[in-house]
C-alpha cells in the first residue's frame, strides 16, 4: 500500500526504485514503512515486504 492505495511492485524492488517509479520527487519527501521512518540513505537497500504500508509525505501549506 502506498499512501493508502494498492500498489503492485515486482519482488525485490528497493524503496528508491518504488518511489521513482511512482513519479515522486527525490527531495522534500520522507517515507515511513509500517509506522517507522526509513532514512533516505537506506532507500536503495531497503526492500519493502509484501503487504507493507508505505506513507510518503511532503511539505504543504499549513500552520
Amino acid at each position, binding site marked *: 500500500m502506498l499512501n493508502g492505495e494498492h500498489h503492485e511492485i515486482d519482488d525485490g524492488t528497493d524503496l528508491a526504485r518504488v518511489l521513482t517509479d511512482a513519479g*515522486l520527487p527525490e527531495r522534500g*519527501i*520522507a517515507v515511513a514503512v509500517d509506522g517507522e521512518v526509513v532514512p533516505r540513505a537506506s532507500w536503495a537497500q531497503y526492500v519493502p515486504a509484501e503487504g507493507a504500508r508505505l506513507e510518503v509525505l511532503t*511539505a504543504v*501549506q499549513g500552520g
Partner: protein
Amino acid sequence: MDKLAFGDHLFDSRLVMGTGGAANLEILERALVASGTELTTVALRRVDVEGGTGLLDLLRRLGIRVLPNTAGCRTAAEAVLTARMAREALETDLVKLEVVADERTLLPDPVELLDAAEQLVDDGFTVLPYTNDDPVLARKLEQAGCAAVMPLGSPIGTGLGIRNPHNIEMITAEAGVPVVLDAGIGTASEAALAMELGCDAVLLATAVTRAADPERMARAMRRGVEAGWDARHAGRIPRRYWAQASSPDREG
C-alpha cells in the same frame, strides 16, 4: 546582538509566518516578502504527484527557512512520527510541536504535548511547542528542554487577539527561553501588544493569509512586531493618575 535564537538557529526577524490559508503561491510569496520573515511553517501531508514540491521551491528561492509543524496530530506518538518524517523530508531539526485535543477548540492537549516534547528533545530536535497560555505548563516545557515556548493568544484562526495578557506576561517574566505568541492574532496592534508583554517573537498565518490584502497586512504585522519590540525595550513611562504638563509653566 539582538537576534532571536532557537537553539543554534539565529534570526533577525521576530515574525514567524505560517503558510496556511493563502489562496495561491503567488499571493503567499508577496505576503512573505512583505512580512520580512526568515522562518515559515509548513505542514506535512501525503505527497500528491500533481502538487509536487512547489512550496519548498518557493521558500528556498526566498531564502526562508522552514519550520515543519505537527498539525493534525492528537497523540504524542503521532506527533513524534510526524516530526521524524519532517526532519527526514526537510533536513531540519526544528519542529513546531502541535498536539491538539479536539477539532472544535484546537487547544493543545497538555499531557500529550509534554510527553511528545520530552521524546523529541531526547531525539535531538529543536522543539518549539505550541502551548496553552499556562505559565506552569510553559515552565515544564522549558524544563523538558524545549528551545522556546509558544503560548496561544486565543484559539487558532479566531483572530480574537490576546485573551489573557496577564498570563502571557507571567510566562515571559519567568521564561529562560524565547517566548513566541502563537495563534489568535488578528491585527497589527495585537502583534505589537504581544511584544510589549515581553514576547520575543510572534507566529501568525491566518491574520495575513486570509486578510483581504495579505501583502499589506503582512507589512502591518512586520511593523507591529518591530514597534512592540522597540517599545518594550525603550523603557516606557510609568502610568500616573494625574496629568503631568509636558510644557514649562508660563510664569517660569
